[in-house]
């Protein structure tokens, strides 16, 4: 019997073995010299391991990603990458070099075109494209990393990590790896005697490497007000009057884009004029958008919890601890997992822009040649079926729902507002409404199991275009929804199918409302309504606390 006894600690023993092999590379405590980084990876990573490289939305474990590309592929191969973002060229180079072979991820950003190419050429076996929460969830189910390559601002000799302004994914990546007997390697900008605050306890970290260069951060959430168009101002007025005021939206998430930046910049002007201060837009799940500064300074916003930071906003955020979540060291504590969960359950409204909406109301940012992934938008751009607390906005949207009664009878149940902002014709005259999404073509060319859809039509409650607002959730059939979409789709192929008598009926029912129906003076819909017209104005609003990166300093 003795010989047959099953071992229940194989993972732990394997882990100990790998760590033991790496001991000669350790300089002191947990610190490994940057020059030994490649060797360390060759030692602790084994073929077929699941490996995560922390490629967040913003801060990047770029040094470790480069090192992984340099390992000997005789020793390390067939890795299964499980990472939230594919954002650096090196994230794909590991596949070109045949070090890794499979990927499960959330968001591809600037690597979207090359990723699609690799998948098509068979260089990458595609697992699935996830939302952030979905991927993080699977870290604790069937995609647990064996090795995590993470990134922090600083570490001490015991391995305590300070993630600073951009904590983002670090806690979830490390927790999933460490507690399933995996190995955690962190690159840091500097090694210090005492970290300003402990974001990750040292005993969760196995190795620390001071990278030769500070990690790369991309200012993804800054939109220069100078580039906001009059048409965006009009849609922002419609959103504020026809949706935020109409439903009394208190808690929300804004997708990143010029459309939502316009809304943020209209709160202190148009919103104030409509007497909405204190009645709408009090609680946000949101990165520290610089365009929200005027609304914050005017006293609109009570609380903002953030997925990550934003370049140049550190001093401003630190000085507004009533609004943001701030650590004992006075800097922002962001956390993508918590913020996504908060955004999924805690908010009444999600609003964002998209590339294409089809005639049924499904929307996608995919094009035939790019696998862009989802990021976090679908976690907020959906109705959370597990929500059980009620707010007036949520209940009103549920009451108006055209099909709910036919499913659950007369029981009151609310509904998340999911709003898509769309220009009927986008840049380069690309139509914003299409008969069939390009996502279908992408699924075919890249061999994906399903077309990547950002927001499904049945989750979508409102579409806002310069033609008007379609209150889709009020519709009682797919036919009616399609008619409402046509009514706001302008001169696109979808919009040209509009039947005027149908639209008249929809306007009568309040399912479609034009700017005139909403009582919006079109002659006022221009940039002069913006509380800040350029980045310099934002700096002025912030009292000099906002320090925009050079690429935004237009003065």
């Amino acid at each position, binding site marked *: 019997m003795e010989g047959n006894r099953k071992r229940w600690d194989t993972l732990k023993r394997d882990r100990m073995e790998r760590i033991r092999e790496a001991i000669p590379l350790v300089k002191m405590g947990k610190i490994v010299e940057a020059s030994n980084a490649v060797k360390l990876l060759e030692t602790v990573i084994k073929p077929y391991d699941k490996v995560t490289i922390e490629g967040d939305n913003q801060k990047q474990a770029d040094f470790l990603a480069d090192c992984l590309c340099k390992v000997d592929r005789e020793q390390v191969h067939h890795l299964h990458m499980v990472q939230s973002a594919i954002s650096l060229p090196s994230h794909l180079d590991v596949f070109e070099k045949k070090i890794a072979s499979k990927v499960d991820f959330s968001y591809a950003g600037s690597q979207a075109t090359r990723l699609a190419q690799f998948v098509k050429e068979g260089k990458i076996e595609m697992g699935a494209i996830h939302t952030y929460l979905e991927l993080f969830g699977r870290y604790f189910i069937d995609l647990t990393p064996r090795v995590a390559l993470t990134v922090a601002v600083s570490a001490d000799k015991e391995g305590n990590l300070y993630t600073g302004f951009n904590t983002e994914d670090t806690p979830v990546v490390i927790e999933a790896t460490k507690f399933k007997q995996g190995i955690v390697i962190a690159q840091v900008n500097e090694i210090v005697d005492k970290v300003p605050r402990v974001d990750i306890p040292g005993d969760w970290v196995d190795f620390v490497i001071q990278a030769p260069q500070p990690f790369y951060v991309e200012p993804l959430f800054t939109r220069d007000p*100078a580039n906001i168009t009059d048409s965006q101002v009009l849609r922002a007025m419609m959103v504020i009057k026809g949706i935020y005021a109409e439903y009394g939206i208190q808690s929300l998430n804004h997708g990143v884009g010029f459309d939502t930046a316009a809304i943020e910049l209209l709160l202190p002007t148009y919103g104030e004029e409509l007497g909405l201060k204190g009645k709408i837009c009090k609680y946000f799940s949101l990165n520290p958008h610089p365009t929200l500064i005027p609304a914050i300074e005017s006293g609109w916003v009570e609380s903002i919890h953030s997925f990550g930071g934003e370049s140049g906003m550190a001093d401003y955020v630190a000085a507004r601890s009533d609004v943001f979540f701030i650590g004992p060291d006075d800097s922002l504590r962001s956390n993508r997992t918590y913020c996504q969960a908060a955004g999924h359950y805690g908010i009444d409204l999600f609003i964002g822009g998209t590339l294409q909406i089809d005639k049924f109301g499904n929307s996608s940012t995919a094009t035939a040649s790019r696998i862009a992934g989802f990021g976090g938008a679908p976690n907020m751009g959906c109705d959370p079926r597990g929500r059980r607390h009620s707010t007036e906005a949520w209940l009103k949207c549920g009451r108006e729902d055209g099909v709910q009664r036919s499913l659950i009878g007369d029981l009151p149940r609310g509904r998340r507002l999911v709003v898509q902002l769309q220009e009927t014709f986008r840049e380069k005259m690309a139509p914003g409404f299409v008969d069939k999404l390009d996502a279908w073509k992408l699924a075919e060319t890249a061999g994906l199991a399903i077309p990547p859809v950002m927001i499904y039509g049945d989750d979508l409650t409102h579409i806002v275009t310069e033609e008007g607002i379609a209150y889709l959730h009020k519709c009682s059939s797919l036919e009616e929804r399609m008619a409402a979409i046509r009514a706001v789709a302008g001169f696109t192929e979808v919009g040209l199918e509009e039947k005027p008598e149908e639209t008249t009926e929809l306007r009568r029912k309040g399912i479609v409302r034009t700017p005139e129906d909403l009582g919006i003076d079109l002659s006022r819909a221009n*940039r*002069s309504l913006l509380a800040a*017209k*350029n980045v310099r104005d934002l700096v*002025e609003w912030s009292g000099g606390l906002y320090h925009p990166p*050079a*690429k*935004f*300093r*237009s*003065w």
Partner: protein
Amino acid sequence: MRKWEEMQERSFYESTARERAINLVDKGTFTELLAPIDKMTSPHLPILGEAVSFDDGVVTGVGKIGKRPVFVISQEGRFIGGAVGEVHGAKMVATFRLAQQSYEKIKEKYPNDYESRIPAVVISFETGGVRLHEANAGLLAHAEVMEQIQHCRGKIPVIGLVGSKVGCFGGMGFVVVATDMVIMSDRGRIGLTGPEVIEEAMGKKEFDASDKSLIYRITGGKHKYIMRDAAYLVKDTIGDFHKQVAEALKMSYDEVQSHRCIGSLKLVEEQLELVKIAAENNFKDATDVWAYFGNKKSDQIQDQFYDEFIREAKRRPRR
């Protein structure tokens, strides 16, 4: 259309060419010539399948400041980046000709009192230069405008204003410095080759076109003011530009001329001396040049707001 008084407060940078044209002159005095209703459009663009604009991207007309007729040319950056095509250029040239005819008539009518009534030409530049779709006509237009500026010399002050979104680049970068006086806001930019083109030709190390801060240090109003390429730096409102033009029109013709960058042997020598200074000192950035001319905290200049900058800026001394 909003009231003239309201428009004086409006950002010059944010305003359309027509808003600028109407409100740069005294209230209610502007008459547009070859307005959109005349539909004089580019003959070349339709052949290329491109959309036309009924004013071909430039507003021309005449108004008054005080007693003086002011002939206005105002370029519209929202139409092909304010680029100069055949009609656009012809409208500019025709406006100069009208100004000269007006000068002769006034002189004839008020032989003893014409100096306080002589016309001026004001150009609100917002352009990337030649419209590549009609490049030959566009280039010719540049030359003709230069010639018209020469015809005006000794008679009619020509004032260039730069403070709009596109700035003043390409061939029009040459034209603007050939005017008698340049007035800018700190949001205005003047240059010859656009930032992206420099980057493409010389590499990102030499010029990073995504670095807006760098672009403004090299081409922006503050730099041009320190270097005296711009005679005056004003705040970014139509009213401030209007007031500065009105001030200029109170000056004697010789005083206006004293702000020229080129146009005499002495001025050419002055420019060549600058080239020499630049070569000798091996400046790495505009901040080095500012420091050379006595600005001690040159690294803070870029972040200074208008009043502080005007109070503290040390400008290139003139010979």
